[in-house]
Structure formats: C-alpha cells, structure tokens
C-alpha cells in the first residue's frame, strides 16, 4: 500500500514539475513595439501622483483631437533608457532627456531627434514663446548640455519649469520692499518689524539632511560667478578650495550665523525643512525670511490651519537678491523636458501638441508648477510671481548637488551641516571635499 502511494505521489510530483516548467516557459512576456505609427505613440515618464495625473490631463484632449493613442508608461528607473540605448533595444517614441553626461553621445549617435525636426514649422514659435533661459545657451556658447543644446540645435523640448531660492515672508510682519542686493537684505533690522532674527532655516531631512543648505549656497555661488564657472564646479572642474567656492561658503554662513538665524545653528540643524518656516507665523515672529522653493506654502498651511493662510495676502516671496550685479540673471531652477527618440508622425504630433499653450495651460491649471511658455495665466499668486522670476532669468541653473556624482553630493551636503555646526571647520571641510571630488569624478 505504502509503495503504491509512494509511486502515485512521485507521479504527481513529476506532473506538477512539468506543469511548472511549462508555466515558466510561458512567463516571459512580450514588450509590444508600435513601430513607425501615425496612430499610436509610446511615452515614458518618471512622474507619479499629482504630476502623473496632470500629465494625463494634458494628454486627454490630444487623443480626442487627433485620435492618436498615447501609451504612457511610468518608468521610475532613470537608467532604463540608457540600458535600452546601450543594448540597442527599442526605445519609447518620446521620453525625458538623459543625464547631462550622455547628451552629446546620444546626439552624435542619432538617438535623440532634434526639437527642430519634431516641431518643424512650429519651432520658431516654440523658441519665442518659451522662457529664454530654457532655450538659450550662455552668451557666446553653442552648447548647453543641461538644456539639451548641442552645436546650436535643440534636443530637449521644455514643457515645465520651477524656480528656487525664493525668500518667503509673512506679509503681516515684513512690510518693507524686496531688497535689491544681498547686502540690502542683510542690512534689514528684524526688530524694526518685531521679529527676533532675519532668517529661519531648517536643514534636517533624514538621510538627505543638508539639501536645503545646498539650495542656499548654490543660489549664492551662481550669483557670485558666471554660469560657466558654476557648471564647471558641478562637473568637478573647479575645486572646493577655490577662493570663489570658499567665498560662497562664507556668504552662506552669514545666513545661518547665530546673529542672523532664529535659534542659532543648533536649531537650524535640528529643525526639519518643512517646519523651518513656522516661526514666520508665530507672534512675535521668530524671523522675517525663509529661503525655499515654490513647494513650501503647503507646509505653512499644514502647520497653521487655524490662520487660514492665503498666498499673496498672508505670505509672499521675493526673488533671491543680486549678490554681484555682474551675474544678475543667473537663476536657480529646474525643468522637465521631452525628447523624441523615434521620429514617427504620431510622435511629432504629440511633441507639437505639448509645445502649445493649450497643453501647457492644463499643466499650469493643475498647479504645482510653472509652464515653459511665458504667457501662461496662473490662478495661484505664488506661480504668477514665480513666472516673473523665471522671465527675468538669463540662465536657469540647476541645483548643483543634484548633478554631482552621488557621493560628491552626499559629502557636499554633509559639509554644509558641519560648517553650520562649526564655522571654524570651513577650511578642513573644503580640503576634505577636494579629496572626495578627486575620487568621485574618476570614470572607471
């Protein structure tokens, strides 16, 4: 009996195994490719949540108008495109541009199709409608890999943008004019407005602690130097011990010195970036200004629900004042772009559509961003104001750390925490950063 049972069991086992192998063989799915189509277009984006929803809102009228179906895939892994390019496998028709280091290579290989090709006769309108800082390389240059310009040709089509380094204030407390220069800003006497200190700051952000300080110092360095120096620094061609970078650190330290910052350095280092602005709305006010990007009002309203804070009436911001007037027009921000990777009629149609103000108005209406087109209307006074900052920009410069190798970025952030904690350690910190830099940019 036992033997019969055993034999049956082993037969059952064999059967199950066979079935499993069969299943496994069928498991390898197929990745559909639509080919050079005029009815379908494949798009990859890294967006999720509200940003994804906004993009879907933008795409909806395109489908009803043209009948072209957009196959949108969220691809979180920024490297996936590069993996496909290296492997020679199929690319989406439209996706975001690659990292800066790959732009030249991909253009020379013909992987990226130019915006001129995609837009055709609409190209000139695109250039004149879009913020100049997003489409123009620094004066005297024909390349700007950050915005996808190689040998004067455009490869990344800008659709959205943001500006950073804004000084937020409580309108009921600070009633003075926006200072023109950084020295004017430092000269403001907080007690004149009933506030304890000039600035608030909060650098704590878990394992990313220090990033708010990097935004602050970037906004200083890009206003003390020209755009090329700034990008050279990002690319590891300028040392941290360079006198200009040291000057940037010293200027930053004025923003977090015991004399100027609410609660002193310990408070700055212990406070989460989202809570940094709370003292703006306390009575008496802890500080007059908080330097942060356009996302920060959501934290104000979240922390003070009872005050029912409104943009434009309760709080507002002014742009980062000029540090060295020679470099006015360098503005910190970022941008979202699309690149056409397969030149198909449907892809061209979608690129043309996304460059229209109709499409970008939807992005603006959904909130949380500036469009790339200058003439868009914003309901939110914050973005109305931010649009004028973007319009004033000659060069929209990225946040440095985000474009450095990751261990350079981590060391950069950490150095900002350390010098905030102990300004006397500046020289040794900068030396250490040089050491990290020498190792981090080695391509191996």
């Amino acid at each position: 009996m036992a033997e019969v049972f055993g034999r049956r069991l082993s037969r059952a086992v064999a059967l199950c195994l066979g079935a499993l192998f069969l299943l496994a063989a069928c498991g390898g799915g197929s990745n559909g490719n639509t080919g050079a189509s005029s009815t379908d277009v494949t798009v990859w984006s890294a967006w999720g949540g509200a940003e994804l929803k906004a993009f879907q809102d933008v795409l909806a009228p395109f489908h009803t108008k043209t009948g072209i179906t957009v196959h949108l895939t969220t691809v979180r892994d920024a490297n996936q495109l590069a993996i496909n390019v290296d492997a020679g496998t199929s690319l989406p028709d439209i996706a975001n541009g690659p990292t800066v280091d790959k732009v030249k290579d991909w253009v020379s290989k013909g992987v990226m199709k130019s915006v001129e090709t995609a837009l055709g006769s609409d190209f000139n309108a695109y250039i004149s409608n879009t913020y100049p800082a997003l489409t123009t390389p620094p004066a005297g240059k024909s390349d700007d890999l950050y915005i996808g310009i190689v040998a004067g040709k455009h490869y990344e089509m800008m659709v959205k943008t943001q500006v950073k380094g804004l000084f937020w204030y409580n309108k009921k407390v600070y009633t003075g004019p926006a200072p023109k220069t950084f020295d004017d800003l430092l000269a403001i006497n907080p007690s004149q407005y009933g506030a304890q200190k000039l600035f608030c700051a909060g650098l704590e952000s878990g394992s990313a602690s220090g990033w708010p300080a990097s935004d602050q110092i970037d906004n200083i360095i890009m206003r003390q130097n020209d755009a090329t120096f700034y990008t050279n620094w990002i690319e590891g061609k300028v040392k941290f011990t360079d006198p200009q970078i040291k000057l940037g650190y010293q200027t930053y330290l004025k923003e977090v010195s015991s004399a100027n910052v609410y609660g002193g350095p310990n408070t700055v280092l212990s406070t989460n970036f989202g809570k940094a602005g709370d003292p703006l709305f306390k009575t008496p006010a802890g500080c007059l200004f908080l330097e942060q990007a356009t996302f920060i009002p959501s934290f104000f309203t979240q922390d003070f629900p009872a005050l029912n804070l409104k943009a434009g009436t309760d709080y507002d911001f002014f742009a980062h004042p000029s540090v060295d007037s020679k470099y006015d027009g360098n503005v910190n921000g970022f941008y979202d772009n699309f690149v056409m990777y397969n030149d198909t009629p449907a892809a061209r149609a979608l690129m043309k559509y996304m460059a229209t103000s109709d499409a970008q108005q939807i992005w603006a209406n959904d909130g949380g961003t500036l469009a790339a087109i200058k003439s868009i209307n914003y309901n939110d006074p914050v973005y109305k104001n931010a649009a004028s900052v973007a319009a004033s920009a000659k060069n929209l410069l990225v946040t440095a750390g985000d474009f450095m190798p990751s261990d350079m970025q981590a060391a950069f952030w950490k150095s900002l925490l350390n010098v905030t904690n102990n300004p006397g350690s500046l020289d040794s910190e900068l030396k250490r950063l040089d050491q990290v830099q020498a190792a981090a940019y080695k391509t191996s």
Partner: protein
Amino acid sequence: MDRIITAVIAIIGVPLVLLGYIYAGEWVIERLPARVQVWIRPYFWALPAIGFATVFMVYPLLRTVVLSFRNGADTQWIGWDNYVYFFTFPDTLTSLRNSLLWLVFYTLFAVGLGLIIAILLDRVRYEQIAKIAIFLPVPISAVAASIIWKFMFDYQPPGTVQTGTLNALLGSFGAQPVAWLVNSTTNNAALIFVGIWSITGFCMVIISASLKSISTEVLEAARIDGANEFEIIRLIVTPLLWPTITVVGTTMIINALKTFDIVFVLTSGAYDTDVIATQMFRQLANAHYGRAAAVGVVLFVAIVPLLVVNIRRFQQQEEQR
C-alpha cells in the same frame, strides 16, 4: 502576471523540486548494493543543505572578497585601492573610531548592567515585574526605538517650549537645552545609550537564567563558611556565570559592530556619528560596490575571531552537559 508566476514557482516549485529530489534519489539508492547505500545515503541527504549553504553563504562571501579588489563597476582589478581608501579616508576613519566606541561602551554597559540587574533582581520579591519592565524595549524594532528616542532627544530653540523629554527635564532645572544629536560631544554617547537601552533586557534575561541554575547549596555552603554577599558574588557567582557572560559579551560585540539602524534613523551618520555599517551602506548606495565589499570584508574579518570564540564556548557547554 510574470511576477505572480515567478512567486508561485518559488513558493510551490522549490519544495516540490526538493521532494522530487528525495523521491528520485531514494528510488535510485534503494536499487544499489547495501554497502554502497550505507555509504552514499548521508551525503545524498546532506547535499541540498550543503548546496544551499554554498549558493547563499559561501559564494556571496567569496564574491564579496573578489569584489573588494575590483573597481566600482566591477570591470577592473585595482589591487588594495579599496582597502587603502578605507584606512586613509577621514570619513571612514571616523566611522572606525565610532564603531570602536560602540564596541567598548555598548558591550560593557549592556553586559555589565545586565549582570548587575540580574543579580540584584534575584534578591527581591518583585523580580518578575522589574524584569518585564527592563525587558520591554527588547522586542521593539530598532527603527521604532530610534524614533521614540528622536522625540526624547528633540531640540527646540532656547527660550521656547521644549518638546523633547530630555530637554524639558533639563529646562525644569533651569538648564539650557542640549542639541543631543547635533553636538559632537553628546551625539555618539546618545546613540550608544539608545542601543544599550534596547538590549540590556536581553542580556539580563540570559544571565538571569544562568544565575537560576547555580545551586543554592553552593551559596549556602559559602555563607556557612562565613563569606559575605560581595565575596559570594565575586568569588562564586561571577566565575560560575563566566561562560554565559562570554557568550552574551561576544554576541554584544558582534551587535555593536553590526550597528546600523539606530545611527541611520537618528543621525544618518551626520556630525561624525557614522559607523562601519552605515559607511558600507553609503558606499553601496553610491554604487561603489568595490569599496562597500572592502568594508564588508573588514567587518567580517573583525567578527570571525568572535564567532570562533562563541562557537567554542557553545561546544564546551555542550560537552559539560
């Protein structure tokens, strides 16, 4: 869909394959001559375990050693560069120093307090309740414990309401608040304290169990011979507990060297609080696989002697039984 199929294969398929291996193998072995059967059967049954250990333990170990001599992209041999980096770079040296601090103070206090508490509680009536109180932090996950302590260490500007328990306490004595986790004279101590808080109960329970096994006759004989309580603890209890203390101690040393979660949650290694394991994580996160492997190898080499001691102790205890 692909993933579901893979999961099904993994969950059902692997045990089925093993079952198939046993049935098919036994079917073959049964048909072999009796002497061969006796010789081959243990190997046959041990093979899957050895196979798994090789694939999941030995291979990764060897691969880590190999990786530690290669560059980040694993394309080139670079000799001792990763180790040179580890032992010369200021950041990693700080992490080595901190791991040493952890090793000494965490082990000393966890085992020492565990021992003292176990001995003291052995002599009181409310032993059970006190033990539960001290053991309570042990089952809390290190991440949750760290977040609890993040609130305890919280810092607000001087002159405002202190929301952190410790600073509120300082304030009630009229003292200025301390930025426990930022100030480099207090932060390492604060982190190690959290570690001790969460593990002392464990040491206490193990030592206490061993303490209970000391026969009361021995102690009574000593008392009759005129030994006072301190002499009993020093000359009788402690030597009898020694094997247990070594095992607990070595386990704590290994814990100290592996410390990651508390540091990662509370400071992420900022303000000179990095330890070896957070350093390894950082190298991994920044795609320096070679350097991370080198850190791993250093950590492994540091832990091996302790493992050997621990296993020897276990064996001795087994033999004594």
